[in-house]
């Protein structure tokens, strides 16, 4: 986390135990906390392991060494074909979606200072869901058409929420409340569409709405990867602002942050992340809600933990997809079912053993 001169005192007290690294002459400094670094490294290792397992197991189980060899570009052609054309895109979509949901969840929860304010709750995913359901019922497949519709729906809902919450500036609280309203409208519209559809189509739509990595190919990876390549650096640049906004508008203003600019920039980035991820894999349930909370409790910092949130998000999605394919023989559970079933107890366990009683960011 970058800390400006103004906040250094407070941050140093808050982060007692960390090692402060200062860049000479620029005034920029970072606090490197051993626990954060350790947790991040462990999480990264877990994500890498889950990624390889995700690629290795499926209808045809591949030996792990072959998988690693063919991911590195070697190996025999049959394995390479399975890996590169079938398994790799699926695993990449899972990895990138998880990271996007995790970071977006951390942004939304910090910005609104409410642990319940995930994009699932405040309307971004709901907007994408309505648009995609309409598309599916009109007979568009799960290809680019649905992706575009979901993207338009998600970004449209976010823009609408922001415009409606604008009244000589916005507040986090007003954004949340307006978001709930928009979410409710979109959910109703989706329910209405599901009522009017045939049962088979309703089931297809429900599958999309649950979130699934089934049959994802490079067509899904491309847009998502480009979006993340643009948006994640933005998140890194905006992270200091996010760190300031977590103390509330008054304090952020006193710290010299441009509160309104910071908020719209962060919201835009968060909405973009969620919309692109949802377009690729559907609104995978609860990842954006659960991942930042798990990350916070693992790292043990009071502020937003962006990198650990991204890693937890990726891990939850990848592990969920592996479990979904292995849990019940003969059926492939969509990942959205599994993330809820496995993620919830995880959060509950952390909740039970943590001493923190604050709102969690």
């Amino acid at each position, binding site marked *: 986390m970058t800390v400006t001169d103004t906040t250094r005192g407070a941050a140093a007290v808050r982060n007692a135990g960390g090692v402060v690294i200062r860049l000479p002459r620029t005034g920029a400094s970072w606090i490197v906390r051993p626990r954060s670094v350790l947790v991040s490294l462990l999480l990264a290792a877990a994500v890498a392991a889950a990624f390889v397992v995700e690629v290795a197991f499926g209808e045809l189980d591949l030996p792990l060494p072959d998988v690693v060899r063919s991911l590195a570009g070697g190996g025999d052609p049959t394995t390479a074909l399975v890996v590169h054309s079938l398994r790799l895109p699926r695993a990449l979509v899972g990895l990138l979606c998880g990271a996007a949901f995790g970071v977006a969840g951390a942004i939304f929860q910090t910005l609104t200072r409410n642990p319940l304010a995930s994009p699932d709750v405040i309307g971004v995913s709901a907007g994408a869901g309505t648009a995609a359901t309409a598309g599916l019922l009109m007979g568009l497949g799960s290809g680019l058409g649905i992706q575009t519709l979901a993207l338009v729906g998600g970004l449209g809902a976010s823009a609408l929420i922001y415009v409606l919450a604008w009244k000589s500036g916005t507040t986090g*609280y007003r954004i949340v409340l307006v978001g709930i*309203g928009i979410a409710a409208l979109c959910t*109703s519209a989706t329910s209405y569409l599901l009522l009017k559809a045939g049962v088979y189509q309703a089931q297809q739509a429900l599958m999309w709405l649950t979130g699934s990595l089934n049959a994802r190919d490079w067509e899904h990876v491309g847009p998502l990867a480009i979006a993340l390549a643009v948006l994640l650096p933005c998140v890194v640049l905006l992270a200091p602002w996010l760190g300031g906004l977590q103390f509330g508008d008054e304090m952020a203003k006193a710290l010299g942050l441009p509160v309104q600019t910071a908020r719209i920039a962060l919201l835009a980035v968060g909405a973009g992340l969620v919309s692109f991820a949802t377009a690729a894999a559907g609104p995978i349930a609860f990842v954006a809600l659960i991942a930042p909370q798990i990350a916070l409790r693992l790292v043990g910092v009071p502020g937003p933990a962006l990198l650990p949130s991204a890693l937890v998000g990726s891990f939850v999605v990848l592990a969920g997809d592996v479990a979904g394919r292995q849990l019940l023989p003969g059926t492939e559970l*969509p990942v959205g079912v599994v993330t809820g079933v496995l993620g919830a107890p995880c959060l509950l366990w952390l909740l039970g053993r943590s001493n923190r009683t604050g709102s969690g960011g």
Partner: protein
Amino acid sequence: MAILCFVLSSSQNRSAASPVRPPETVPRRTCVHLVAVPVCLIVLGLLCLCSIALGTKSIAPERVLELLWSPDSSEESGIVHQMRVPRTEFGLVVGAALGMAGALMQGLTRNPLADPGLLGVSAGASLGVVLTTGLLGITAPQGYVWFAFAGALAAIALVYALGSAGKGGATPAKLALAGAAVTALLQSLVNAVLLFDAAALGDFRFWVVGSLTGQPAEVLVDVLPFIAVGAVLAAATAPALNSLALGEGVATALGRNVGLVRLRGAAAATLLAGGAVALCGPIAFVGLVIPQLARLLTGPDHRWIMLYSALLGPSLLLAADIAGRLIARPDELHVGIVVTVIGAPFFIALVRRRRLREL
């Protein structure tokens, strides 16, 4: 027992709260309530009348009043007594229950995002319904009403047990997160069943939207006692919520047993929300919006918020039900959908108009 609690808590509250309140604001507020409460009651009464009079076959209001007191053998009398009166009763009971449950949840968790669904009520009831229709093959609505109720009760008990484990007991943030996590878990299980059982999805998608006509009138009589007990408990808890709003420390200093207040509030919310979801399905938005509306009207006093929530909840639900009948005549739109379509823009407009106090 509940009445005793009410007496005790209201007398405690008077002695605790009155020195704090600025004296000059009391008369003005009271005057406002003297006008506003009767207005709400009159609106609610008119909506009841409309709900009985309007529909696919509309009946003149004076004829409705006549038929209400003296049913005859005409077709109109049959419509009034067999169809319109029961659904109006459902709307009144469920609207009030949802409004009060929402007010309780928001007060207890001090979170404006809290609604009766937050502690897992809707998800628990959904799982109950899905399992009965999907696994046991029971499809008659009366068959799954008790499973829905049981699911709601089990879910909320689980949330409360998990949320109060560990240090500090059932704090708002822990309760809210435990609720969100259990909801996530149950909702995933529901989705898992529905994705593989098309027949269950066929029934479930209608139930989950929420409707005032899903259950026969006798069921209301069975479930009503639970809701009534919940309402009394909720009224008794309202004064304590005022102290709780000042923070846990202050509430304790004012002589509140914070843990007991939370337990009582959660029990009341369980009965109210569980009863409502068993009767009409998980109608979204009423429990969320109505307490917010009530707070905008009355300010932060939970006793008034509770009262207005109980009056405004049924008003919104009945208005939505009437609109759903009239818009899509001769077909009907489900009340759960209409309530959002009416409620959401109104809610957004209110959020924009007023300066909001954080809870």
